[in-house]
Structures are given as structure tokens and as C-alpha cells.
């Protein structure tokens, strides 16, 4: 049978005609569409929803608004979800978390009894003696720690992001936000209105603002209707604004979408967090905030089992009692911490309804029922002085306690923007000041609590936003709010403790005070030592109490004590939504299809994909060996289209080259190439390439695939300062290139048809030419990277695939073999050529890596010149050298350490087996004293096995460099 619920006007969100069921902890639960999991559970009288973090105490909802973390449960696909944030419909099987056994009978709850051995910070001092005990304890702790369990089989769901722009972003759609949005929109601004609840209206949807409660419903209806129908207001409900970033950049999370909102100005009407009273066992399931009880009744029509006690620090709690009484809840008493309510009509309203009023009194201790998992009774004492009670107790049986000690503004977004919190002793409230430009506050976050004042405050904020946008508006209204909603000291220390200040972290009053006693007096240190405010609630219900306790313990004002820095996110955000759509753009060269057709094993290279080698992955070594053999003995072709390309054109092109790169370029002849090494201002080599001088005023320079963007960018920045007469263009995608290498490479080009003389006299090593190859306009360069006769052809990208096809055909008689980037890396290693970023790191200066020859000392300036001079005049700390090893020795990998007398002196940067040389070869940084070819160095390979490697002269292959100069 479906659970009974209150009639209209209670239960605004539920659909009484659509019952829903789900399972929680193995038992079926019935609710209605529109219920969340928490309201459905309470609708069936089930308050126990979780076990607390440290002591594994039974816990149930506190705020019922997703503001506390007492209801973290496990769903089939996700862990750590708040029960009140999950709709009851379509939930399936749910369970609790953080227990050993079951939620009802958690063996870990023994930790509650051992509490005195687990004081705050106990883990800094325990578990380390006797020596070796940590290994045992670590295992125990790892199993006990953590909350929910991640589902490793879960399929990622679709998430995405969208950009939104507006004139005014209004965060919070309570009475203040609704008024602000309407005022701004009517004044001509484009408004985005955001609220974390599904329903517009905020507190207007559940709170009784006045005794008569006559106009609230109409006000709500009128405002919601106006907002929904205003064409200048866009509404996002169920949406949380998780941060405020510079210039009103706001991340708004709604379901599986992240809206990146840029507003010109914003209004924060985020409301305030109701505060708990701090007394022994104030964490029992069944103890809620007054607003929580109101939400249950007004939103979900749930009338929990009574009797109920209302613990009042303000008049609002009385109003909650009256609403509850109207709903039929049996109220055992209203306990007022004050001697009188502000509105003197309230006591009479209570007695009319047969509700007993206890004045100047507090609940001092709550007791559980027989199950241990729900409130059963409370003990009330009269208040004698701040935090101290008298001697005469009153015992009240009750199943529910609703409390309100006051309110703390939802300050997070404002504080992200630099706003400060100041405490006012007269009202015992924190207020926000020093707002950033363009941010306006309205409503209870602005310390305004009277409904009429809140609405006026909202309209003023709307006007403020219009003024910030230079739009016309009328003068502000006077906002007057005399209400006192905060009790100055709702904190009652009990000799037996367990008066919780922070529910997330299981911290009681003495934990906070002891932090100060141990010397952690600054609120930032109190937080880090005790962990107060570090849980999911992020201090919403603990910051105010902590500030008061620490101010008192350190004899400072509450303002001086303050609260800890608010940082994004305001509420937990899922990594999946932050990641957004899962697509990974890759850049393909024009020959991409050819590589796939040839069975290439493709790998990422920066944002590109390139062939590593051709053939099956499980035959990697054999495939690479075959390709290398072809290049050394026949002819191979590699697609090097990803190489960066920059065109420099103009009268100052050579002068510019001269200043950017370390080598000399002013006298570089037209038709020759030179090595272009780039240093940064610290004197570190950061990129290299080949510079071809195609004309007096025209250089074509290559750069590394992953470095070209930075090189181009830096060139532009330098010339913005030097104002030389040249144009700089990035042409990486415009040109594509292949490198045809091997003894028969010249023959292949001649076979393909080339209008350039290719003989070694006409086209010597390191020269460059422009002409036609196979009918395609090409720039040709003879470079020595792999150490064989070879030609690098750069052609317009549109023609590159055709060039590849024609060269493959032309190469058939010579058994041309395509080779990939891993083969190329082996071939260059055999020649001892370095790869920037592989054999160099963030500290490598030219002297360390054998590039002293590439430094031109006669020219006046190049970028990094002074630093290079300083570094190279100092003794070397390390040197990059070649080494060899027998193929039967353990093979070092990149990153393996080079040791000398037990100290680390360097690392291996490249290491491969060379089939041509039948040896393992590599490059490593070694101690300068060991850099000579007759030395040996110690390399520590995998699992600590050390090998002695003799230093070799570079290059390993073809020492005379004759083959590339053919």
C-alpha cells in the first residue's frame, strides 16, 4: 500500500497518482514520482541512511537540501550520492556506504566506543611504534577508509558543455533572486536565473514567513509566473553555480552538462544555511533543521512520525512548529534558547494549538531509541549563562527534533570574488563586505531576513545590475530588517562529549578547542589540524560554530578569527562532466590512408598520428629491423609531413634568422641548408630544425612537430619588439613532406622524373633546390638525419598523397620500403643524432649535448646568447655521450640511471638494439670525467641490475659520414 502523505497545499512536488518503488539496503521502499530518495525513505519512517566517517555513528538527513553530507549512499553506477539529490523514480537497487556488516549493524561502530583513543590528529602520533607496525595498520586502515565503492564496469555516460552569455546572472531563485531577475529584465537586461532546486521560489516554497501565512502562496505564484513568462529571463533549475571566477565567469552544472557562463554583472541571491544547535548526540537520525522539516512537508507531503520537539534560536522555528501542527504532527514542545521570542504573539499561537513552550532552555542531550538508530527522547535543561545549563532536567519522548540556531550566509561565491566576512556582535551574524565590481547581493545572503525587506533587497540588486550595465533605472528602495535570527551561543559542552560541530568529520567541541590548546590558533591551522570544514559540507554547518569557539578560546573577536578561505567547487562536481564530450581530435597527414592500407602501426605524435612502423605490433623488432635494413642497403621512404615549417620572407629575413637561432645565417649561400638550433633565454636548447635559404630574402625553416607552434609564437613576439622588415608565416599544414633515404634514393627520384640535376656535384650534401618531382612542385633538401644518401621533399599538401603514390611506383624496381618513425629513431641513434626533448631536458645547454659547434660566437646577438656564454664558461656538470652494450646484457631503457660511486650522475636518454651493428647502442648523460671513449659507466637497469657500459665515439655507424654525402 502506498504511504500516506499530506494533502494539498503540502506535497507540491509529488505526483500522488504515480507511486514509485526502489530498494534500499535490501528492503523495498515506496514513494511517489517527485520524491527524492531521502523523502521517500522518511515517508516510510526510515531515518537511518549512512554511517559517519570516523565513528560510524548512525546518521540521517539534516538539511534535506543537499547541503550536508549525512545521506551519502551508493547507487549501482555511482558512489557517494546524496539521497536527497537522487530522484526516487528509476533508482533500482541502492545501499548505504561505509560499514562492515550492514547499515543497521555496522561492526565499525565499535570505533565510537573507542573514541578516546582516536582524538583529533591521532594518526600523526599513532601506528608507528613498534617499528614495522605501520605495515599492519596501513592494511587495516585502507580497508576501513573510504566511503562508497566505484563501479569499475560502469559505462561512461554522455556529458557535454555549452557556453552561455548574459547581461545579468542571478544565482538563486528565492524571493530575492526572483525580484532581482524581474527588475533587471524589465529594465532591459538579458537575465540568466539559476537555482539548484527544481522548483523556483527558494524559501517561499516551504517557509512560513509570517504567523498568518496569508500572502506567501500568491507572492510565490505571481513571481514564478512573471519570471517564467518574461522573454528576457532564461531559467536554469536543478543547476548549481559552483564558482565565481574573474569577470563573472561562472561554471553552472546542470545534470550532465556544464554551462560556462560569462555574465557582464551578477546578483548573488544564494540564501543562507540554517545552523544546528550543538548539544550531545545532535547527530542522531531524526534530528533535522527546521527548514528540512518544512521541505519534507511542503515539497513532499511527508508528515514524519511524532512526537516532535522544536528547538528554537529564532522566531522562524516557532513558525515551523505552527506549520507542523497544522499538518497534524504531534508537538511535544517548543524549546526556546531565548527568554522571549521577538514577536510576542507567538507564545499565544503555540498555546492555542496546545503546544508547550519552554523558555530559556535547551536540549542538552538527545537519546536514541532502542534500535540505536533513531531519536527516542531529549533531555532539556534551563540555560544559566552562555553555554552553561542549570540543574533541573526535563525528559521528553520524541521521534523528531527540528532545530534552528540561526543562519550563515551562503558566502562561497562572494568570497571567491574576494568578499570578506565580518561578524556583528549585536546580531551575532556574519555579513559580507568588499564585494568585487559588478557583484550585487540580495536576500538572506545579504543579512536580510524579513520577507518584505528581502523582496525590496532583490529589486535593489536588480537596479544595481542595471546601473552597472549603464541602463536606466529608478532609485533604490529603503531596506529595513530588524529581525534577529541568530542566537549568540547555541553551543552546549557536555561532560561526555559527542556534541558535534562538524558532522562530516565527526568533530565535537573538544576537538575544536584542543586544536587551539595545542597551539593551532589561526583558523587556517585549526582547519588543517582538526579537518573541520574539509568534508563535503565544506563548513556550511560548522564554520560559524568553529569561529565562535576559537574566538573564545583565543580571546579574539569572531571577526578577527574568521572562517577559512572559500574555494571552488561550492558543491561536489563530477569529473565526467568536467571532461565533457569524449572526442580526441587527431591531425592526419595527406598520406594517412596509404599508411593504414600498408598495415602501419599508428601512434600519436603530438596532435598527429604517424606510422611507428609497418606491420603487426607483435613483430615490432623484426619489422623495424627490416625497414632499417632497407634504408641502409636499398631505399626507404618516410612521411615527415608533421614536421613544423615556417617561411621567413623580406629584406631582414637573414638578420632575423641570425638573432633567433644559435648558428650564423647572414652569409648562408642561397641553395644551402644549415642546422638551426634554438635556445631559450635561459640558454637551454629547446628546438631544432633545418634552415633552407631559397633566396637572399627567403628562408624556409623546419622545426619539431610538437615545438613549431611555440617557435612561431616566439618569433612573432621577438619581431614585435625588433620591428625588422620581414613576414613570418607558419606553413606546417600547407606543406607536407617525405624523406627518401638509402643508397638508391637518387635513382628513385630520377625514375619518378625530376627536373633538377641530382648528381652529387650538382646537388651536394646539405644543399637545397626547388623544382618539379613527378610533375609536382617541390622543395628538396639533402639532410643527414638517418645517415644515408637521402632527399627530403616538401610539397604543397594537396599534392602530397600523389607524390607518395608516384614515388612508391618509381621505387618498385628498387624495392622501396616505407619506414616509420620508430625505425627513423633507430637510424638516427646509429648516427648519434639527438632528438630535442628526448635527449635534451629542461636544463640541457649546448655544451652538454655536443652542440658547441652550432654556436656562432662572432655575431652580436642571438636569443639566449648571454646565458649560453655563462653556462658554457662553467665546468660541465654532465655530458651526453654514446655507449654500447652486448645484446645479451640487460638492456637499459630511457630514464635508467647512470651511477658513479653510488651517486646518480645522469640518465639514459635513448637506447635501442641496432641490427646493423649487432649491438645495443644508446645515449646517456654521464659525469664529464667519464665522457672519454675509453671509460666505462655504470647503468642501473630494471630491478636494480647494474651493467658496465663502455663509452663509444659518435657516430656509431659510418664514422666518416661518407654514406650521407654520396
Amino acid at each position, binding site marked *: 500500500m502506498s504511504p500516506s502523505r499530506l494533502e494539498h497545499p503540502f506535497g507540491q512536488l509529488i505526483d500522488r497518482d504515480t507511486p514509485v518503488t526502489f530498494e534500499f539496503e535490501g528492503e523495498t521502499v515506496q514513494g511517489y514520482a517527485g520524491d527524492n530518495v531521502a523523502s521517500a525513505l522518511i515517508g516510510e519512517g526510515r531515518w537511518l541512511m549512512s554511517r559517519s566517517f570516523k565513528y560510524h555513528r548512525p546518521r540521517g538527513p539534516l538539511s534535506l537540501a543537499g547541503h550536508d553530507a549525512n545521506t551519502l549512499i551508493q547507487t549501482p553506477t555511482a558512489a557517494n550520492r546524496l539521497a536527497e539529490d537522487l530522484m526516487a523514480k528509476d533508482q533500482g537497487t541502492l545501499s548505504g556506504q561505509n560499514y562492515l556488516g550492514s547499515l543497521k549493524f555496522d561492526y565499525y561502530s565499535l570505533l565510537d566506543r573507542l573514541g578516546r583513543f582516536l582524538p583529533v590528529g591521532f594518526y600523526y602520533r599513532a601506528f608507528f611504534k613498534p617499528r614495522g607496525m605501520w605495515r599492519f595498520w596501513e592494511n587495516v586502515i585502507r580497508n576501513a577508509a573510504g566511503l562508497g565503492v566505484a563501479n569499475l564496469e560502469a559505462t561512461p555516460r554522455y556529458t557535454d558543455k555549452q557556453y552561455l552569455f548574459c547581461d545579468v546572472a542571478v544565482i538563486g531563485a528565492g524571493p530575492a533572486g526572483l525580484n532581482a531577475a524581474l527588475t533587471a529584465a524589465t529594465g532591459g537586461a538579458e537575465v540568466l536565473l539559476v537555482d539548484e532546486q527544481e522548483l523556483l521560489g527558494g524559501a517561499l516554497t516551504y517557509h512560513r514567513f509570517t504567523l498568518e501565512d496569508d500572502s506567501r502562496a500568491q507572492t510565490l505564484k505571481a513571481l514564478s509566473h512573471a519570471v517564467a513568462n518574461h522573454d528576457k529571463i532564461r531559467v536554469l533549475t536543478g543547476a548549481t553555480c559552483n564558482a565565481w571566477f574573474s569577470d563573472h565567469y561562472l561554471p553552472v552544472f546542470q545534470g550532465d552538462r556544464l554551462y560556462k557562463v560569462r555574465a557582464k554583472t551578477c546578483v548573488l541571491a544564494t540564501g543562507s544555511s540554517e545552523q544546528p544547535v550543538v548539544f550531545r548526540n545532535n547527530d542522531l537520525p531524526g534530528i533535522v533543521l527546521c527548514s528540512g522539516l518544512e521541505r519534507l512537508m511542503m515539497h513532499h507531503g511527508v508528515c514524519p512520525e511524532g512526537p516532535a520537539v522544536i528547538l528554537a534560536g529564532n522566531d522562524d522555528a516557532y513558525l515551523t512548529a505552527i506549520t507542523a501542527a497544522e499538518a497534524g504532527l504531534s508537538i511535544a514542545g517548543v524549546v526556546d534558547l531565548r527568554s522571549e521570542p521577538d514577536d510576542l504573539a507567538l507564545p499565544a499561537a503555540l498555546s492555542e494549538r496546545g503546544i508547550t513552550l519552554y523558555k530559556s532552555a535547551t536540549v542538552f542531550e538527545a537519546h536514541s531509541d532502542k534500535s540505536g538508530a533513531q531519536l527516542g527522547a531529549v533531555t532539556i535543561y534551563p540555560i544559566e549563562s552562555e553555554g552553561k545549563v542549570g540543574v533541573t532536567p526535563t525528559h521528553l519522548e520524541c521521534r523528531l527534533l527540528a532545530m534552528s540556531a540561526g543562519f550563515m550566509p551562503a558566502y562561497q561565491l562572494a568570497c571567491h570574488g574576494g568578499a570578506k566576512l565580518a561578524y556583528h556582535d549585536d546580531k551575532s551574524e556574519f555579513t559580507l563586505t568588499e564585494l568585487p565590481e559588478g557583484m550585487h547581493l540580495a536576500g538572506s545572503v545579504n543579512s536580510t531576513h524579513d520577507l518584505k525587506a528581502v523582496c525590496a533587497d532583490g529589486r535593489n540588486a536588480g537596479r544595481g545590475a542595471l546601473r552597472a550595465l549603464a541602463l536606466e533605472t529608478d532609485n533604490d528602495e529603503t531596506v529595513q530588517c530588524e529581525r534577529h535570527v541568530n542566537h549568540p551561543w547555541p553551543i552546549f559542552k557536555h561532560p561526555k562529549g559527542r556534541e558535534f560541530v562538524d558532522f562530516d568529520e565527526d568533530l565535537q567541541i573538544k576537538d575544536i578547542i584542543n586544536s587551539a590548546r595545542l597551539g593551532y590558533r589561526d583558523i587556517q591551522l585549526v582547519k588543517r589540524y582538526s579537518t573541520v570544514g574539509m568534508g563535503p559540507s565544506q563548513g556550511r554547518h560548522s564554520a560559524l560554530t568553529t569561529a565562535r569557539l576559537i574566538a573564545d578560546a583565543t580571546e579574539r573577536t569572531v571577526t578577527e578569527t574568521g572562517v577559512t578561505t572559500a574555494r571552488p567547487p561550492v558543491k561536489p562536481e563530477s569529473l565526467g562532466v568536467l571532461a565533457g564530450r569524449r572526442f580526441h581530435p587527431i591531425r592526419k597527414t595527406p598520406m594517412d590512408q596509404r599508411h593504414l592500407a600498408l598495415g602501419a602501426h599508428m601512434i600519436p605524435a603530438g596532435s598527429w598520428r604517424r606510422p611507428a612502423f609497418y606491420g603487426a605490433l607483435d613483430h615490432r623488432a623484426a619489422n623495424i629491423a627490416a625497414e632499417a635494413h632497407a634504408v641502409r642497403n636499398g631505399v626507404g621512404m618516410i612521411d615527415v609531413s608533421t614536421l613544423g615549417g615556417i617561411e621567413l620572407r623580406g629584406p631582414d629575413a637573414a638578420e632575423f634568422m641570425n638573432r633567433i637561432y644559435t648558428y650564423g645565417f*647572414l652569409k648562408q649561400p642561397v641553395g644551402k641548408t644549415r642546422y638551426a638550433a634554438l635556445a631559450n633565454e635561459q640558454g637551454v636548447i629547446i628546438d631544432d630544425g633545418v634552415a633552407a635559404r631559397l633566396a637572399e630574402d627567403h628562408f624556409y625553416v623546419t622545426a619539431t612537430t610538437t615545438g613549431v607552434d611555440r617557435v612561431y609564437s616566439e618569433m*612573432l613576439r621577438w619581431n614585435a*619588439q*625588433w620591428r625588422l622588415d620581414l613576414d613570418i608565416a607558419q606553413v606546417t599544414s600547407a606543406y607536407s613532406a617525405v624523406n627518401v633515404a638509402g643508397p638508391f634514393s637518387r635513382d628513385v627520384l630520377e625514375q619518378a622524373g625530376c627536373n633538377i640535376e641530382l648528381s652529387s656535384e650538382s646537388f651536394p650534401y646539405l644543399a637545397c633546390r626547388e623544382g618539379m618531382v613527378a610533375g609536382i612542385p617541390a622543395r628538396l633538401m639533402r639532410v643527414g638525419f638517418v645517415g644515408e644518401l637521402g632527399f627530403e621533399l616538401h610539397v604543397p599538401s594537396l599534392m602530397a598523397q600523389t607524390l607518395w603514390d608516384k614515388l612508391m611506383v618509381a621505387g618498385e624496381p628498387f624495392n622501396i620500403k616505407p619506414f616509420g618513425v620508430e625505425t627513423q629513431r633507430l637510424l638516427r641513434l646509429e648516427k648519434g643524432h639527438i632528438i630535442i626533448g628526448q635527449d635534451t631536458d629542461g636544463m640541457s645547454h649546448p655544451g652538454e649535448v655536443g652542440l658547441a659547434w652550432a654556436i656562432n660566437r662572432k655575431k652580436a646577438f642571438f636569443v639566449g646568447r648571454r646565458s649560453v656564454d655563462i653556462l658554457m664558461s662553467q665546468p660541465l656538470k654532465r655530458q651526453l655521450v654514446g655507449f654500447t652494450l652486448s645484446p645479451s646484457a640487460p638492456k637499459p631503457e630511457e630514464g635508467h640511471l647512470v651511477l658513479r660511486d653510488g651517486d646518480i650522475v645522469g640518465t639514459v636518454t635513448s637506447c635501442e638494439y641496432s641490427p646493423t651493428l649487432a649491438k645495443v647502442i644508446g645515449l646517456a648523460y654521464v659525469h664529464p670525467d667519464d665522457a672519454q671513449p675509453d671509460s666505462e659507466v655504470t647503468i642501473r637497469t630494471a630491478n636494480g641490475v647494474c651493467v658496465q657500459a663502455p663509452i663509444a665515439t659518435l657516430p656509431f655507424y659510418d664514422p666518416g659520414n661518407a654514406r650521407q654525402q654520396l
Partner: protein
Amino acid sequence: MPDPQQCSDKDWASYVFYDNNAIGIVREWWQHAPSSYWFIAERHNASDDILRTYDPGELFSERVDFTTGENEP
């Protein structure tokens, strides 16, 4: 930038590695990524307010020459 040919090693190292980092208005190089256009921004480094942006030509209008030393290939 101090004159790399005249300044002391200490001054040069100071230019490369150290920053005053005082709170106040800083003048910075910013680049518009889609167009690769470099410009100057004046920003207050505590409040993050951008006070002014302008073309580098306002600060660098003359051709810069490095004259001392020969120029060899």
C-alpha cells in the same frame, strides 16, 4: 632586458630568473591564440583587473639593432 653584452652576470641572471613580484600594475605580453597576435596588457596582479591593452607598436616603434661585434656566417 639589460644589454646582454654590457651587463654583469648577476644582472643578467636577475633578468632571466627573478621577478620583482610586487603587488601592483604589471605590463605583460599576451597573445590572442586563434590569430597569434601579440599585444601588451596592463594588469593589476592582485585584483586581476585589466587596465589597458594595446599594440606593441606603442612601446616598440623603432627598429632595434645589435651593432657591436662582427657578423660572420
